[in-house]
């Protein structure tokens, strides 16, 4: 083992600090277990922290996430590595796992950064802001987003021109370009995999024109436009800055579609689209919002009422399957669709189209387990050894799965799943294997 590898031990390793990983870590730590929480991104909070509001209550997502994230970040029993990845996990014996973790350099000394953003103002470089889904730019020296945790600057070293402007203005001299990756060898008693999901990339459906037609957005791009920390001052078409007044949602984009390799329902798209439609009716009172759907799946508590509420607000629902989207010279979009109820082909013009993209597996976690195999299910989500009897068990005893790493689910179910995984992990630690 190289001299510069640091060693440490914890009761549990949680991979992924989204809402499920964070909840699982918090449950373990509140019961006296030490936890290492590893997150590849620069902030804790996963995708939820970037949402506008949540369905069906329309509560502010940040208002729910931020206190939880703060509790996780301040808990003395939880050590958090952001901008880090777990490279390898090996099960040596029961209650004895060994993990290799790499912490990538942030080029900012976290403890010294006051989040004053002077470095951000001084930085001359602008690149696409991935936290705003590329709708606007950010600097190469940047705070990921206003409610990021830790709220600490980072340097995007790939795009930095090393001009030194950030260092010159930093009042605490916390920017340090001599930082190198840090490697850790960690011993843990149990592992929870909470690596979340990926969103379907609509570039894989060229007939919808995403990427080519600038007024075709994904639902996450619209989510950012609706959030309080939105990229624009209001809802705008990214193609020309026009305020839209005739918007369309295309449900099941990349879900329930075997032709794109995802035959299952993503479970959240109907409701998040209905949520966004309601928020749009509030933000753009004169706008027409139409949702094109195959079936509305309002299966959860309060979901059907939420759907009825949207209809009552004037959201137009059309049972129709979109064949193709084409763009007019003025940037408007023509949707050619099968009207399922009338059994006819129709066309409709809208000035903005939002693709309700589905949930895809994130199978990367499986490859880090060496020795015993972490099995995936037939859809490439983390396999559940006993999905009915114990949904958090995986193919490796002592490794548990939490949240959407095991399949599509909404936020309350992710938190429930994290509760189950953390309870099982504690039980495993107490039983000693």
């Amino acid at each position: 083992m190289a001299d510069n590898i640091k060693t440490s031990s914890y009761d549990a390793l949680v991979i992924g600090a989204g809402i499920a990983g964070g909840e699982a870590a918090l449950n373990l730590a509140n019961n006296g277990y030490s936890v290492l929480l590893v997150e590849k991104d620069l902030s804790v909070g996963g995708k939820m922290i970037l949402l506008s509001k949540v369905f069906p209550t329309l509560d502010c997502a940040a208002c729910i996430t931020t206190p939880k994230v703060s509790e996780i970040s301040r808990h003395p029993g939880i050590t958090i590595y952001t901008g880090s990845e777990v490279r390898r996990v090996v099960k040596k014996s029961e209650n004895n796992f060994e993990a290799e973790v790499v912490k990538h350099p942030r080029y900012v000394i976290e403890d010294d950064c006051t989040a004053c953003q002077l470095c951000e103002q001084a930085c001359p470089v602008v690149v696409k802001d991935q936290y705003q889904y590329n709708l606007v730019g950010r600097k190469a020296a940047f705070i990921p987003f206003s409610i990021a945790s830790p709220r600490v600057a980072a340097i995007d070293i790939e795009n930095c021109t090393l001009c030194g402007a950030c260092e010159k203005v930093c009042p605490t001299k916390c920017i340090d370009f001599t930082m190198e990756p840090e490697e850790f060898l960690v011993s843990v008693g149990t592992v929870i995999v909470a690596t979340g999901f990926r969103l379907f990339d609509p570039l894989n459906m060229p007939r919808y024109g995403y990427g080519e037609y600038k007024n075709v957005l994904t639902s996450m791009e619209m989510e950012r436009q609706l959030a309080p920390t939105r990229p624009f001052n209001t809802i705008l078409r990214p193609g020309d800055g026009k305020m839209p007044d005739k918007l369309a949602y295309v449900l099941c984009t990349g879900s329930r579609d075997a032709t794109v390799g995802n035959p299952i329902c993503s479970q959240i798209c109907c409701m998040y689209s209905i949520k966004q439609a309601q928020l749009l009716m509030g933000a753009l009172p004169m706008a027409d919002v139409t949702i094109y759907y195959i079936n509305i799946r309002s299966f959860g508590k309060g979901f059907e009422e939420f759907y009825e509420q949207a209809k009552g607000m004037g959201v137009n629902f059309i049972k129709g399957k979109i064949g193709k989207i084409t763009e007019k010279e003025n940037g408007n979009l023509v949707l050619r669709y099968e009207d399922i109820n009338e059994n006819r082909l129709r066309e409709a013009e809208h000035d903005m189209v939002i693709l309700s993209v589905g949930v895809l597996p994130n199978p990367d976690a499986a490859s880090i387990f060496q020795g015993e195999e972490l099995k995936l299910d037939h859809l490439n989500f983390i396999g559940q050894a006993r999905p009915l009897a114990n949904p958090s068990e995986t193919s490796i005893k002592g490794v548990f799965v939490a949240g959407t790493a095991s399949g599509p689910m909404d936020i309350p179910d992710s938190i429930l799943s994290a509760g189950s995984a953390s309870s099982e992990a504690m039980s495993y630690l107490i039983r000693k294997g």
Partner: protein
Amino acid sequence: MEEAEKGKTSRYLRDKKGVSEEARENLKKFTRIRKSILDALKEGEMTIAQLSQKLSMPGHEVVFYLMTLVKYGQVQTGEIDDMDEYYSYKLKK
């Protein structure tokens, strides 16, 4: 390894690994576009469509760069037109 002076470490990494051509080109592009947008707005408030025509730049690029300048406080949003379609933008005083 020679120890870099605290607060002047960018030179250390620049000497060690250099700066990619892509990063340099990206900076040049943004600097050029930023100047052209700010110069155009010196003449008065403009909508994105007007800026796009004046600068011969695609609308989506104007939206991206203009909104970035709004975010970083160099440009501010003005009034919306009579049709409630397009905002105008002006230099921040």
